[in-house]
């Protein structure tokens, strides 16, 4: 039940200001920081050093899983468990499975993309320390918020606050982590 510090939040008025501030924060050697914005800001992912998102792979895995399963299912259903002669064609051939398997690939890929996105973002989550902050509501409107985490090696309540002030942040505030 201790009240720990989650981090320091600062507010910016424009994506340009945020991007410049983020460059300076990175240059100052901070690693555990994040920005909260109403829309994705171009250039931010490069600046924060994000690699290609894994969502695409999760989606591919979902799609491939479904595709192969449907091919297998069709073989099992129409060629193995209950062999069915249709139009004098072979019991099983790859082309005959293509359309259902391809459609289920789309289904699997889509579900994979959604689950991948939620999973990698650790959603759904019921609470986040930032939700306790009234000013954080601006992050879905027209404010651009930067948070430097208390777990950062360089974090220091006074020094970090000064740095955020010099890079142009306003309404700098401590975010508590109620556990």
């Amino acid at each position, binding site marked *: 039940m201790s009240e720990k510090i989650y981090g320091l939040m600062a507010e910016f008025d424009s994506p*340009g200001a945020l991007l410049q501030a983020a460059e300076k924060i990175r240059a100052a050697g901070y690693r555990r920081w994040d920005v909260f914005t109403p829309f994705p*800001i171009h250039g931010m992912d490069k600046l924060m050093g994000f690699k290609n998102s894994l969502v695409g792979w999760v989606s591919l895995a979902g799609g491939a899983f479904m595709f192969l399963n449907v091919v297998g299912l069709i073989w099992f259903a129409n060629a193995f468990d209950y062999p*069915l002669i249709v139009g004098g064609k072979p019991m099983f051939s790859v082309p005959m499975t293509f359309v259902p398997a391809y459609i289920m690939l789309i289904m699997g890929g889509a579900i994979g*993309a959604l689950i991948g996105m939620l999973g990698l973002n650790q959603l759904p989550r019921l609470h*986040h320390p930032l939700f306790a902050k009234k000013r954080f509501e601006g992050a879905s409107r027209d404010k651009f918020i930067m948070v430097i985490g208390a777990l950062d090696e360089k974090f220091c309540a006074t020094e970090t606050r000064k740095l955020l002030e010099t890079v142009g942040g306003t309404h700098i505030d401590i975010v508590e982590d109620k556990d």
Partner: protein
Amino acid sequence: MSEPALNLEELKKLAPPAELRRAPVVEGNQGLGWLTDKLSAFAEGKTPLWWWIFFIPAAFAATVIFPTCLFYQVFTGVGVWGNNHPVMWGLDIVNFIWWVGVAHAGTLISALLFLTRQHWRTTIGRMAEAMTVFSVAMAGLYPAIHVGRAWFDWFMFPVPNSNGLWPQFRSPLMWDVFAVNTYLVVSSLFWFMGMIPDFAVLRDRSTTRIRKAIFSFLAMGWTGSARQWHHYEKAYVVLCGLCTLLVFTVSSIVGLDFCTAQIAGWHATIFPLYFVIGAVFCGFGMMLVLMIPLRKWCGLENIITKSHIDKVAKLTLVSGLIIDYIYLMEFFIAWYSGDPYERWVFGHRLFGHTYMIMGWILIGINVCVTQLLWFKKVRSNLLWLFIIGLLINVGMWSERFVIVVGSLYQDFLPANWGKYMPTIWDIGLYIGTLGAFFMLYLLFVKFLPMIAISEVKGVMPQADPHHPLGGAQKEAGHE
């Protein structure tokens, strides 16, 4: 970064001349806060009178007419409809194709135009996706009850059962089951995922506890951090790609239902493409019908600008021209094939005494009325566009009627000749699905973010960190 920033005067000199400049996505040149207020205003404000005026009849159709017709048909049998030998596919299949068609333009607008980086699509994408989700739901219903014994619908799914039977996977009708269900699931996922950041917007804006609880639940803890956006954008691109595949797949498969049959008038390789383009054309018509009144009544003239409507009208024209080409080819191939049955069927589409009216509605609207969209005057007149949108829906409905009924009622043997007339239950069910569609749509408009708030904000100049309005000027270091 070292380059000195330009001031506004210099920027104006560098900009292309006015006629080459792109129309702004959002007019009025206001800030992001204003935009957020504007876009969430309708979902948060008091319900206006017009909403009730449309909602009550739609809800009546959806909750009284719809279940009455549905239950009567399910309890009695397909015989309550006009379907009978030789026309075994009647209004149920006509409406099925029509609803699937309406869905397609929604996916095309939101997914394909995203992949081609058309920024204007952000303003109407969400409305188009909602149109897709609701109309696929309506479409899926028809084949499910057309089977006659709706309680055996599960036979269509590959479920292990005590009879030891499996579906026959070589049939396009079987593929249809997969296609329509996948379409419903994927377009719903796409719609829902697109709304997550906007649920967060409504959550942060909510004033009552109950609204806060509902939108917090739907937003699932979205914070809008750079990491979240990073994964979100990737997932969005992937989903757009998959949805684009569906645009071309679902109606193709519906087309295959027809062209694998040996009926003259159906047995043509052009059918998959024909159905895809017809679907898109019809859906654009529906989009015009929904978009034009809503932008006015919801006060969104600055967001869904005339330029956007003009673009939708142009896309309608393009798809209409492709449809016209396909009509021409159908008739040409029927003549060129030398097949007397083909010639008979196509001759009777326009000159047969029974259904020639439908054939001429098709030609009159899909071929003639569409040409009006060449004129800028028509494309900038909202009333005209609204009427053209309505007419296109009628025209495409009659096209499906011509294809389905027009090919079945007189086939190879005079013994198989008959007539088809929809009964009151056919028509009631159609009215019921229309009511359900509009009821769901009105509820969507009223309670959910009807415009993709974060997407629209993201394409504003204020959102571009390298644009003067986005705060790039400060980096100049002139001070």
